[in-house]
């Protein structure tokens, strides 16, 4: 297996200075020392999994730049750049574009600037299909355009719970035919689509979904989550995965966790194109 390659951003400027999701409150600012400690522990765990880590330079006025998952959707040599719904995050786009270009990607943008799309936060491959979350942050129409640009099947899923505003907070592909899912974050259509499209769905309980259990980083059989998801870890072990946990509460204050802090540059393991299956 080629070395997994992950893009991260140091939390040097991470903080809660605006509120753009229900997790955020300016009354609960980040503890910079603790945040740095937690981020380094995650980085260390990924290195232990054999991953290569690339970094995007932190920027003073962009506290959420640390959430690299939102930079783009990666497909082979192409990265379709995010266009953030909230102006507070739109400044991140140029830094991600520059860094991804530097990393050798052909960086593309959506053909329409009136549509929003928040990268791998809302678009995850499982098998041949790109599952795409919409309504909260990304637009369904943007996903259709990405499907056309990449020539892949896109199944848009409506997100209905503001606490699970990105697809990667309630859904996590593990392999081309297995995924974690928190069903109440989806409407009945979305749940049915997921059930009909993915053969093995591991359901996450509400209390663990709130601990960002679905916001997991998958490297091979290793699944890394925030602490406090024991039932999920038991299920994962039962299914032959190796769950690991690391405390990420500082980032939960901003509505993110393990997965949000990473962007898999060589493609997620659950993507068939990555495994050479498509």
């Amino acid at each position, binding site marked *: 297996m080629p070395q997994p390659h992950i893009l991260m951003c140091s939390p040097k400027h991470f903080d809660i200075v605006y509120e753009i999701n229900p997790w955020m409150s300016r009354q609960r600012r980040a503890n910079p020392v603790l945040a740095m400690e937690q981020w380094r522990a995650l980085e260390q765990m990924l290195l232990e999994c054999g991953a290569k880590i690339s970094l995007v330079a932190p920027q003073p006025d962009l506290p959420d730049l640390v959430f690299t998952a939102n930079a783009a959707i990666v497909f082979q040599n192409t990265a379709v750049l995010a266009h953030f719904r909230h102006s507070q995050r739109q400044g991140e786009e140029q830094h991600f574009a520059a860094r991804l270009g530097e990393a050798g990607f052909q960086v593309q943008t959506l053909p329409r600037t009136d549509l929003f799309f928040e990268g791998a936060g809302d678009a995850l491959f499982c098998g041949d299909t790109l599952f795409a979350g919409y309504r909260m942050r990304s*637009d369904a*129409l943007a996903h*259709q355009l990405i499907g056309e640009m990449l020539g892949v099947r*896109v*199944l*848009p*899923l409506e997100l209905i719970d503001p606490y699970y505003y990105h697809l990667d907070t309630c859904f996590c592909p593990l392999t081309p035919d297995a995924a974690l899912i928190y069903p109440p974050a989806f409407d009945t259509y*979305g749940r049915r*689509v997921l059930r*009909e499209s993915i053969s093995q769905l591991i359901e996450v309980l509400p209390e663990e979904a709130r601990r960002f259990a679905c916001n997991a980083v998958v490297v091979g059989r290793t699944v890394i989550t925030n602490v406090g998801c024991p039932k999920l870890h038991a299920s994962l072990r039962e299914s032959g995965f190796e769950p690991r946990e690391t405390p990420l509460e500082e980032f939960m204050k901003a509505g993110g966790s393990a997965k949000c802090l990473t962007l898999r540059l060589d493609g997620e393991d659950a993507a068939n194109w990555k495994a050479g299956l498509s």
Partner: protein
Amino acid sequence: MHLLEEPSMSQDTHGSSSDSAPFREVAEVSGHIIDSLILPKILDAIKAAGGSFQILKIDVGQNLADPSFARIEVRADTEEKLGKIIKTISAHGATPVLKQDCRLRPVDVEGAFPESFYATTNQRTEIRVDGEWILVDDQEMDCGIVFDAVQNRARCLPMCEAVLGQSVVVGHAGVRVTPHERNTQSAGFEFMNSAVSTEKPKGAAVREIARSLFSIRRAGGKILLVGGPAIVHTGSGEYLSWLIRNGYLHRLFAGNALAVHDIEQAMFGTSLGVRLDSGGIVEAGHEHHLRAINRLRRIGGIRPAVEQGLLTSGIMYECVKNNIDYVLAGSIRDDGPLPDVVTDALEAQSLMRAGTRDIDFCLMIATTLHSIAVGNLLPAWVKVVCVDINPSTVIKLNDRGSFQTTGLVTDVEPFLRALVEELKLLEAAP
């Protein structure tokens, strides 16, 4: 791509909205709308909000990666409800057709349009570019629309004239058609929808046509006549000559035959060998039209024949004398033909196209194929009167979308005689 054209799938909710719901908007959605359940979800959302819908078109992708496409007409009984529904379904990726710019694709094969080009109607059409609506010039049915970004101009273009690199409108998004008002109840551009009666009173219709010609002449408008040889055979040539001399005709489209028999009559007093004054058959009269054609071919055409005194009367003579442009379009059964006849069908079509752009009124008399050809070229707002002894000509014209046609099923001679009489009355009126 599997194509289900116009399947007319429709769904009405119980009670509030129905087929008669007055507020309607067309929206499009594409992508993996079937397996993602986006399409059923949109349709459910329309119903849940008290609206109804009709699926106007659906293309279902065959392979896993192929997107599907649906065009849906959303209906509601109030404008507010319609707006709410459109807002709801927009969140699922459906886009109102009129809120998008049109999609343009370059011509990649000379003389052909890109796949899924927008096929025009004869109705007033606009396209949306960068949020602005642009009126399409040279409106004509069965064409494509090309957009010139430099001049910011859109126009209809027949596919055979497509040039590499031209931008052509594809799909229905960003295209707005305003149906021309019509007398019948049904609306829109449609085929197989005509009503022609042989039992309508003719007098009133002829008077109405005369009034139209009279007022167009007074306003400086342009009148086109598309005519068949029966005009000459029935002895009506003199009425046409009168119309030309008195400024009621400004352009003439016909075939070889009308000109040939008109010239035969001028030279020999016969049409297809039949004496027009007595109706008697003349010895060797069947040769007259060939001899007439031959003389014209020897002298080089109608204009030289008039200028050199060989042709001294008749419709074609009056055309030359009164500077009336004419297009004589050839066919494979033509004798001769006359040197003036354009035998390349595309060239003839293109000359006729150019000759219809400034026309305000069109009289089609006793010709089926030329009438249909010209009907195809005219925009819906040009009034057309079609006079034929055979009702099927008028029906055919209507069935091909030229529904602005008023049909008059009658013999040509009494029609033209009555028309000239009515015009003389109008001229004599104080």
